[in-house]
């Protein structure tokens, strides 16, 4: 094509790596998307909100995407890949990391359920992977493990207590 507008520039974070993305909309639903210099012709149709049929360089791809702010959980045939898209114009080309690095660790419930046992006491030293609590949900017991080394600072629940998904169960430092 002879003339075209400036491409939309984005920085994509996937599997920890940062990738440079440029997007040009050629026509409605037709895009030219360049990733680290590799160009892709994309025909994108929305089947319903969050559910898409893509033709990428003639490859037919069915995918479902759950979007939360700049985070996109992409489901490709049962495989989930998380992609963060940062508008580099907006951030002056610097991708801002929001994940907490280091600092006191919070142990959260991964799902709604009931506390079966607490495996540690305040003051205990724990390794990465040490079991901290056992939560029962959907008739199965699941051990909640420490994501890193630390010392138990606070335990906020007790056996038999019902907990919500994401609820803080204990704090390490």
């Amino acid at each position, binding site marked *: 094509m*002879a*003339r*075209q*507008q*400036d491409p*939309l520039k*984005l920085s*994509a974070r*996937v*599997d920890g790596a940062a*990738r440079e*993305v440029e*997007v*040009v*909309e050629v*026509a409605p639903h037709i*895009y030219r*998307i360049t*990733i680290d210099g*590799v160009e*892709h012709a*994309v025909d*994108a149709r*929305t089947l*319903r909100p*969050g*559910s*898409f049929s*893509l033709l*990428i360089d003639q490859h037919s*791809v069915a*995918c*479902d*995407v759950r*979007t939360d702010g700049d985070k*996109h959980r*992409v*489901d*490709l*045939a*049962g*495989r*989930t*890949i998380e*992609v963060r*898209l940062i*508008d580099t114009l*907006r951030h002056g080309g610097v991708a801002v990391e929001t994940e907490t690095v280091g600092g006191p660790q919070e142990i959260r419930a*991964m*799902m*709604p*359920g009931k506390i*079966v*046992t607490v495996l540690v006491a305040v003051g205990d030293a724990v390794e990465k992977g040490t*079991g901290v609590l056992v939560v029962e*949900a*959907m*008739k*199965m*017991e699941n051990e909640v493990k420490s994501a890193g080394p630390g010392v138990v600072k606070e335990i906020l629940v007790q056996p038999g207590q019902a907990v919500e998904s994401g609820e803080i169960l204990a704090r390490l430092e």
Partner: protein
Amino acid sequence: MPSPKPLRRVLIANRGEIAVRIARACRELGIESVAVYSEPDRTALHVQVADFAYPVGPAPSSQSYLVVDNIIAAAKATGADAIHPGYGFLAENAAFARRCAAEGITFVGPTPDAIIAMGDKVEARKRMIAAGVPVVPGSKDTLRDDEVAAEAERIGYPVMLKASAGGGGKGMRMIPGKAELASALRAVRSEAKSSFGDDRLYLEKFVLGPHHVEVQVLADTHGHTVHVFERECSVQRRHQKVIEESPSPFIDDKIRHAMGEVAVKAAASVGYVGAGTIEFMVGADKNFYFLEMNTRIQVEHPITEMVTGIDLVQAQLRIAGGEPLPWRQQDIAQRGHAIECRIYAEDPVTFFPAPGKISLLRVPSGIGIRDDSSVYEGAEVTVHYDPMISKLVAWGADRDEAIRRMLRALAEYRIQGPGANIAFHRWVLEHPRFRSGNYDTNFIPQEYKGLPAAEDGADPSATAIIAAVVAMLERQDRSTGAKAPAQAQSAWRANARREAIHG
């Protein structure tokens, strides 16, 4: 119990896919079906496919599906003349079976005595030894907490700690050594109590490199018992079956028939009636030991139906109605190969249960594919019950065709809302050790180190990035939750369109 008469109206004392399965069998036999439901299950699929439905209490199964009085009351209120218990819940509860008999309701299953004889694992071991059926060495009786350590030492680690009332992979844990004993004891007792309302435990020697192979049996009320061949159930995670196949790629016809004969002997020795499953542990040396008998229909029964053409649930209903088995042993044959993948609502990476409302559901179909589902688009997978969404089954003319067909089906399977273990199933089916057919119950524990980052050749991250970009832009097309960047990009897009027209 009342003398068998053809069933007219069957209450299904269960929920989920097995309740749907039973309702379908009833309809195909011209029998009316009655669903029961807890409060959150009012709009569950099993309620919709049944002819009648009746409430039995609030969400916790201990206050609904497990309450004998509520189930009996539902049967009375709806005029049911029989009760099919499915699996789990009250399926192996002898008191419930006895209660049905007392109320003049046909229990679709074996006699209370047979349930007791086989339901109590320790009892069963004694009976089988007496009947000359080989069993795994272990503790003679159930154990108190303070007895377990000593008994484990006597048998020798590794040992298997099992709930006497357990079954279906629940209420059991392997204990490699002394150190892990305490926590395993606590976990299994609590799981046994919550799942079976009976926390008695016993120990067995843990056989190394074991295969879990089970044999389906059918016995009528006229004294005839046949086996319907075997199922290989060695793909297990935390002693939970994930994938089953039939025939077993591990055993040969000689062992196949020997196990079948032993299974018939075991069932006959307790006067068994109905559909049941004899679970065997088969060592690397191909010696097989009786593990337990499940005195009910099995989750993985469909693979047997696919290879033999026998509808096991219809058979249960006919047997309960007093009909004799229409086959002799030599009439039953295996044709082709079938595989079942259990689709669980769990996080594909952590395996933690991941309930939720199903916002998108595309179930595979076409040649050789069967899906026994408990859900529909818009249904809620709740935290209250098992995380199983459906059982996906593939049949093929041979094992390789069945595997390739299942992989095709898994690639078509789309579900949003709850998590699902689709990617895990694909990993198993593509694994050389599984493909070779030479795997045992250590397969997953030994081989699974998390899902591989990328699939052969493809660049999934590039595809994912493109999908994310599309989602971002198409979302703004629907102009939902427009925010700063959205505006920026909309402006960019407007410009793009203008250019495209003039350019």
